């Protein structure tokens, strides 16, 4: 249903009815803002990034040939916009280690609430090397659909799978090393 509406609206926009693009924005604003948020972890910035993504979608609408699903195409275009936005202005924290140091300066890693620790891990994903970051964010955002993730990333399923595995591994190693270090420090200074 949504796919048909999207195609119809794309057709209308290409025929000159610009206001039909408003329907596309209304339908996709939530997913695009949320996808941007997972990259930047900043509410205001995620809206700016999503707005840039919509502009890029509008400019490239005629390139949508309907071979892939509209959702795949729209996420793929947005992903490129978000990557560029993060290249132009990187996140305030540069690495997972810096992020953990910053958090540890406030509350020791092992003592923080579950919810805060989860949030810290989500922030850490945004600081992974680009290909692993993109793979993990898109995969979990698209409800663990590997085929769609690979299509959005424009790589083979095998490559997407390898990036996901490597990204998760990297994240787990960093977090485990950090929790071990924090626990050891706690033992030394009770």
């Amino acid at each position: 249903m949504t796919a048909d509406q999207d195609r119809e609206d794309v057709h209308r926009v290409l025929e000159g009815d610009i206001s039909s693009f408003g329907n596309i924005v209304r339908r996709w604003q939530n997913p695009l803002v949320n996808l941007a948020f997972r990259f930047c972890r900043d509410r205001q910035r995620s809206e700016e990034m999503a707005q840039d993504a919509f502009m890029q979608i509008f400019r490239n609408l005629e390139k949508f040939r309907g071979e892939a699903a509209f959702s795949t195409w729209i996420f793929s275009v947005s992903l490129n916009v978000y990557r560029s936005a993060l290249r132009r202005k990187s996140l305030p924290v540069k690495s997972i280690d810096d992020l953990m140091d910053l958090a540890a300066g406030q509350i020791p890693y092992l003592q923080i609430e579950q919810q805060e620790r989860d949030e810290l891990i989500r922030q850490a994903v945004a600081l992974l090397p680009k290909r692993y970051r993109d793979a993990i964010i898109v995969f979990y955002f698209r409800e663990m659909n590997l085929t769609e993730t690979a299509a959005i990333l424009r790589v083979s399923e095998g490559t997407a799978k390898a990036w996901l595995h490597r990204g998760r591994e990297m994240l787990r190693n960093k977090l485990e090393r950090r929790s071990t270090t924090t626990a050891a420090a706690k033992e030394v200074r009770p």
Partner: protein
Amino acid sequence: MKPEDLERILFTEKQIEPSPTFCGDVMVHVQAEASYKPIPFPWIPFAAIILVLAILVLWLYPADSVLRAANVLVYTTVNWFIAPSDIALRNVLLAAFESLALTLLLVWFSLRLAGANR
């Protein structure tokens, strides 16, 4: 940390709502971009200038000398690629400089015309 814990954390992410003005803001930018019309290239003045320049060249130099000069230019350019020499190099550089100067002049003039049409 267990792999399933990581899966759970990454899969369960809170959803944020775009601000109520988001759609309107995007559409303002879209409408502005859609209403932008590119400046058409001023073909008529451009053709007129080329015509005037051609008449001027033919008036200043007889047609056969222009053709001879063009022949020499082509010949020396081709010849330089086959057997480079200082004289040929000088001629090629001179021709390249003249072409560049003419191009820059035309670009400047086109920009002036485009500016006047805004």
